[in-house]
């Protein structure tokens, strides 16, 4: 079969266009969505330099896709709008099936879930929370919501859950008296208490959990993942990377220098254990 000259031109143009498409696929962008642990501006200031650095170092184009709440981050994961995430929201049995893979975490001690009231609150124990409003950052918050609310449910203490959207909002509602108690992770609690000069009374503390994990979707190739992971982990060794980390540490008033270290699914076994022991209705 011989093609007419016109058809040849069409084929040539198409082949050219397709080659361009193939070329653009090689330059594909991955969205990185961390769970917003602070407020939007602070989170953006924290992550943007790091993502930019990692992109440049790894050669894998990453863009920050920030959500207001952990629900946003989780939603992006679920709708596959992102391929890298800094989250601990996808360790539930259902979500593990999505095939996301842990490759790193912050070099920080494990955190605990805590139920706190303001230091001047008359509430002294969990039982006194019966019928009270407890504020959480969001329903997706694992350490701050799922772990504490599971404990309240386990102890059959009926409370009404209020979601503030993020941690700062939750602290605001607690301190304004809108809610009487708050579910919070130990790291953010100490950071907030130090930053804002507030003191709280801890009613309950969970077993330790490693904080958010650096995770990648199964769509990310192993090579890209390795490059990204190496860039994160080598930051302290690089002058520019360490500078970024130092500024990030100062920005969020972290107790210890923020660095990223390799992690595996084993580091997050406690999450699976949690889901395994979770009452059915609360899963």
């Amino acid at each position, binding site marked *: 079969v011989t093609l007419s000259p016109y058809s040849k031109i069409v084929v040539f143009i198409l082949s050219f266009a397709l080659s361009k498409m193939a070329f653009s696929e090689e330059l594909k962008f991955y969205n990185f969505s961390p769970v917003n642990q602070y407020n939007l501006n602070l989170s953006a200031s924290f992550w943007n330099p790091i993502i930019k650095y990692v992109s440049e170092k790894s050669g894998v184009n990453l863009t920050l896709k920030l959500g*207001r709440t952990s629900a946003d981050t989780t*939603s992006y994961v*679920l*709708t596959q709008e992102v391929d890298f995430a800094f989250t601990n929201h996808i360790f539930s049995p259902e979500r593990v099936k999505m095939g996301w893979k842990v490759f790193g975490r912050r070099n920080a001690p494990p955190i605990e879930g805590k139920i706190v009231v303001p230091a001047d609150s008359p509430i002294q124990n969990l039982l006194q929370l019966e019928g009270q409003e407890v504020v959480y950052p969001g329903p*997706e918050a694992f350490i701050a919501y799922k772990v504490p609310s599971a404990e309240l449910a386990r102890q059959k203490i009926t409370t009404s859950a209020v*979601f503030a959207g993020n941690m700062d909002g939750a602290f605001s509602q607690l301190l304004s008296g809108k809610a009487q108690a708050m579910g919070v992770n130990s790291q953010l609690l100490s950071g907030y208490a130090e930053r804002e000069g507030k003191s709280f009374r801890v009613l309950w503390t969970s077993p330790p959990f490693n904080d958010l994990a650096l995770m990648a979707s199964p769509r990310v190739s192993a090579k890209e993942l390795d490059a990204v992971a190496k860039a994160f982990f080598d930051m302290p060794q690089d002058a520019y990377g360490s500078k970024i980390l130092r500024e990030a540490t100062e920005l969020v008033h972290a107790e210890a220098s923020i660095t990223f270290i390799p992690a595996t699914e084993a580091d997050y076994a406690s999450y699976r254990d949690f889901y395994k022991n979770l009452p059915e209705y609360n899963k």
Partner: protein
Amino acid sequence: MNFLKSLRPKSLTSRILAMLSILIITFLTAGLGLFYRNQLLQHIEEIQDTASMLIEVAAQAVEESVVIGDYDTIKRTLERTLARSPFKSALFIDLSGGVIRLQAPDKRPEKAPDWIVSEVAARLFDVNRPITVGGKDYGVMRLSFNAEKIANELYDLVLQATLLALFFLLISLALMGFMIKRSLAHLGNLYSYEAEIASGAVAAEAMLVADAPMEIQEAIKAVNRTAASMRNHFGQRIESLMNTLVQHKNALDEVSIVCEVSASGRITYVNERFVESSQRSKAELLELTIDQVWTGMSSARQPWQWAPENQVWNGELRLTGQTGTAKWHQRTIIPILDDTGGVEKYICIDIDITDRKEFEVAILDNARRQNLIALFGQQALIEEDVGALGKLATLTAAQGLELNKAVLSVVDRSSRRVILESEVGMAQWKINTSPLGDDIISGIDYCSDVPGGSGKSATPSKLLPNSVIENDGIRSSVEVTVTGSEVFVGILGVYSTIDYPFTREDISYVQTLANLLAAALERDDAKKRLTYLAENDSLTDLPNRWFLNNYLREAIQRKPSAPEAISVLFIDLDRFKTVNDTMGHSVGDELLIQASRRLEDCMAEKGLVARLGGDEFSIVVTHRSYSERFIKSLATDVVDALAKPFTLRGQDIFVSASVGIATYPQDGCDAGVILKNADTAMYNAKKSGRNNYQFYNFEMNESEIKRLHTETLLRGALDRDEFILHFQPKVSLADGNISGLEALLRWNRPEQGLVSPADFIPMLEETGLIIPVGAWVIRKVCETLRNWQADNIKVVPVAINLSARQLQVKDLAKTVKAILEEYGIDPQLLEFELTESVLMIDPEAAVEILRDIKSYGIRLSVDDFGTGYSSLAYLKRFPIDTLKIDRAFIKDIIDNHEDAAITRAVIVLAHELDLTVIAEGVETFEQLELLIENGCDQIQGYLFSKPVPSDAWAAMIESSFSLQPQLAEDILV
């Protein structure tokens, strides 16, 4: 910057309001900005919170529906969620890939600006909610905000808030403006205070209002204090000023003539000096206008005119008052203006400047005269024509005095002849006098003693006759003398037809001109004299050599009327030198004057007699056609005329003349050559025995050349040792023995042999060589005598001739003595012979020298006795030992009884005076015999021996040569 400044409000109220407005607007803008930002953030926060709540509510419904797969309910839930919500869209994304999307209707038109929309959009995040039931994820619910809608709501809020703020701003500004104006209104009191002050209420004070702001009250108080202080200060100043003004007015009245004139020109006030100056009464003056008081002239011809005007008038005026006396005033008329700018009155200030003006006129007049004098002086220095200078002097005299009549007359003092005469403006001009000169000279005293004095005289001028005075209407005059030397005198007069008051300055001016003129006349006279002296001989008044040269040159060059021939007679007086030497220069001068007159008498009309110098004269004769006969006749006349005796000092003196004649063009084409050739011819005439004339011929020049050659050789002869001495013996008639020798100079030229003494002795005299040669002779004689003595040859006294030139050498005696001593010669062996004329050149000096010589023991004799002009008195004065009778007498002694008589007389005279007598030129025995008879002591001559060289003489001595044998032979026979 200027534009910005122009925008700045002018009034205080406006400025405060503007300032407050800027302040309020700044704060309001900042406040509103912050408010809007806060509203924006808060609104968005609320919306976001609301959205969280809404999605939470909706999620519960969706969760219930998704479990059972009721997607319609999910859709409705999403619809409800969208209704009246700030969302633009609501999505449910199923994990299996399905999407339920609901879009809110776009109802409201966009009105918010894009930037607000983008600001809102940037702050709103989609709200996501995983739909998880029982640990299972079913999907994600997502609500997207309608940013435009939210922005519109916010924009509405902004607009409303802004309008409200503006409304309140305007209200506030209006209120503030009112308050400020009200406060500042109290300053208005100051305006009314100013008006009061302006209306003359200088003691007024600005009113204080109790409710006025404190600062304004303080300001008004300060103004009142300042006004009081100024009132006090200016009061004192005004008082002081008034005092000063009064003093100034008094001072003005002292020095100025002041009056006030109404606007219409009538005098309304006069000061005392005005009354005094106008010589009118004050009452009378107040009836007049200012130009009725005096008649004024702005310039010589322009009457003063002044009309009332509102400009200051200033100028100098010549005023004539009631009495007719003129005065000069410096006048200033100052208009005094009223409030409307119209003239209220005039103040007229006059200062009497009469003295200054007169002085100025005098200075100007003097300057003008000095200028005229300077101009005349310049002319006097350069003008050759004295007539023109006289005319100029007359004119300048009249101009300087600004009169139109002047006369000048100058006469020669000795001849009374008018030498300069001039007049200006005279109708009928005639000099007064006859003879004029006497009258002028007699008028000199009158002129110099009475300055301008003739004005009142019945005859106002010594220079002008009465008829002229009457005809020209002359009433006054000034006349000065023009005098400066003994040569001339004159009068320069200036005349007026009115009674002109001539001043000393006028006379001085005219006299200065007269003096300048006199100086110029003197210079002219001196120049003429110098010219005359340059061209003429002052002794004889004949033209001199310079004039003759010019005359001759001009005559030769004169064309086309050049004469055919010009003859020059060169005349030299023979023996003039002798007359001059023996009788003195004054006699010589007299001789020259008489000779001049005789030459002039010989001269025909067309010729010139000139004195060339000394005793040389010349006659130049021009010929239309050359006539040798005429010239010969003239030359003969000249020789004859000068051969006649001249009577000088009562004596008849004989001189003759030698005349040389050369003629142009045959004897030369040049004046100098002709004169020289005439001179040469004259020299030949002299050589030809004098007292004759000779025409020039070519050979004469050759002879002259030869003479010059000889003279040149002669000058070196002494050095070349070409002179020798010959000796001629003198014989004593008492015993026939040789009594002495006369040394005679001979020139032995190597090629020509001996030269005649007549050919070179005069040359030695002329050239002065006679002095060294004479000394050589003395030395040579001494040397010869010493040699003879050494050779044991008998020595006798040797006589040496002394020339006049030698006798003029003062230390001759010393020289002679030194030579004698050098050679060790007895002075008795030396004798000097001098002619009478030599002795008489300077007898006093000669006596002195000869006495010195005589004192050494040297003998002296007078040579050529009887031929000179001396008196016998010198025989007593000079220390003479011997007289030598001239050979002229001896020569004819036998035949001529006069010569014999003279010879006898001389012998007798000499013996009477104890002098020895020697006869020269004895050549015959007859002569010898006669001389012996007459008692002559010695003889000298060829009879015995001619002059011989010293060797020959030595031989003669050796042979005991004497006259004795001859005497024995002849006389005794």
